[in-house]
């Protein structure tokens, strides 16, 4: 019994210590941004990398998510003669939930992994030490631009994902389910509120920050050559994905009306 309790206690302490280290890392990186030098060029570079180059994968997943959603919601709603709700279900599901979550998970897989691999390689090849010896704070130079880019890029990606996702639902509804185009679009607009879109964008900003933070944190603390970098990459994607889903619940609850 004591052994079990000791294991649980050790696990809890490890979890709390890890959470504390992550929070300190984020706080130190953000605090580094309070004073110059600033690196706008690096923020723009990350912005392009995270946003522009993620467009195809996010757009594609959003399109098919919207299409599947139209089919599934039609299946459910037709059982109690409520087919007219398909447009509303698609637009609300996409803007409030699936747009930000799908985009967050896709960016975690594409960008979070790449960040962890890049920064991890810089760590094990002493490039991060080299930054310090060249009077450059690695947190300010490497981490902060990525956090800022993550925070700003994902909402923009989600706006595009929302539009594409709704368009995917529209395509299926019109060409597969024989809905009337005008009434489908009317229904899409009719029940959509500003809060639906805003809550999705707030989620996106939080998810973008999480993806960048976990990618940077895992890469920054990687050890032991190629194996360590590989491990950091895996941890970055897994931890970001789990944190996205956990924070999604709490954000949904916060916006719940």
């Amino acid at each position, binding site marked *: 019994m004591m052994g079990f309790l000791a294991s649980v206690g050790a696990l809890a302490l490890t979890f709390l210590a890890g959470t504390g280290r992550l929070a300190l890392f984020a706080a130190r990186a953000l605090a580094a941004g309070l004073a110059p*030098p600033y*690196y706008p060029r690096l923020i723009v570079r990350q912005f392009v990398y995270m946003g522009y180059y993620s467009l195809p994968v996010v757009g594609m997943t959003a399109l098919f998510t919207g299409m599947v959603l139209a089919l599934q919601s039609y299946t459910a709603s037709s059982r109690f003669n409520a087919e007219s709700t398909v447009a509303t279900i698609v637009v609300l599901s996409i803007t409030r939930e699936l747009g930000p979550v799908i985009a967050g998970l896709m960016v975690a897989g594409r960008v979070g992994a790449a960040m962890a691999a890049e920064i991890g390689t*810089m760590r094990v*090849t*002493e*490039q991060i*030490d*080299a930054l*310090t*010896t*060249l*009077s*450059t*704070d690695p947190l300010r*130079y490497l981490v902060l631009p990525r956090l800022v880019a993550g925070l700003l890029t994902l909402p923009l990606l989600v706006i595009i994902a929302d539009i594409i996702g709704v368009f995917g639902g529209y395509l299926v509804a019109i060409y597969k389910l024989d809905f009337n185009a005008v009434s489908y679009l009317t229904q899409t607009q009719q029940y959509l509120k500003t809060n639906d879109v805003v809550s999705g964008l707030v989620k996106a900003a939080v998810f973008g920050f999480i993806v960048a933070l976990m990618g940077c944190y895992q890469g920054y603390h990687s050890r032991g050559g190629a194996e360590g970098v590989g491990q950091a990459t895996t941890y970055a994607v897994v931890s970001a994905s789990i944190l996205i889903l956990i924070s999604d619940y709490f954000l949904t609850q916060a916006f719940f009306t």
Partner: protein
Amino acid sequence: MTSSGPQIPKIAVRGLQKSFGTNLVLAGVDVSVATGESLVIIGGSGTGKSVLIKCILGLLVPDGGSIRIDGAETVGLAGRAREQLTHKFGMLFQGSALFDSLPVWENVAFGLIQGRGMPRRQARDIALQKLAAVGLGAEVAALRPAELSGGMQKRVALARAIAAEPEILFFDEPTTGLDPIMADVINRLIVQCVRGLGATAVSITHDMVSTRKIADRVAMLHRGRIVWHGPAADIDRSGNPFVDQFVNGREEGPIHMQVRAA
């Protein structure tokens, strides 16, 4: 191992300790380097040479002891004060540690542009001068580090280390992985650059050819302590069994090589 006279040593390390978990790497290191002197720290793999210079550079925080640069304590410095101190340093890393996302000239100019806020055009001109100083032409300036040979990467790393004309230069295994001819070229460049700048130099190596070429003084680190120090000319008549075994590369002697990492 202080310099003669009342002059304050450029670097003075006293009782420096550093552990990683239960592994005591530095067990009270005492070493000083006079201004303009080139000190080479020798010792086997895993004796704490890299840890020692990383502590001096501020990349690692020591568990105990003192590190004074120009007489001022540096242990515990952080933020702007640490950044200001770092302006005095230039470092050549073992694996060169060039930024592979940047072209060669920007690697060399990095400390000038990012660390000191110099305009890019001016920093580029200085980078080209420093590349020329290590025997590289302007044609390599636009290349990426991955396009260069190991010897050329080392030269670029040396150019980066001297670009801001630091007061203290650190060299971590400068000739590791190079053929003997390229190693000799790097040794010559190190001597040339250190003398040209009038800088103080601290190198760590287990390459005795390199040691003889670049050292004014030599210190030997074993099990986390300095076990011998003296002029480079005395290395072959030190009378110290650790130094004798190491310099002559003998298996028999007081140093027992560990098969497993500590």
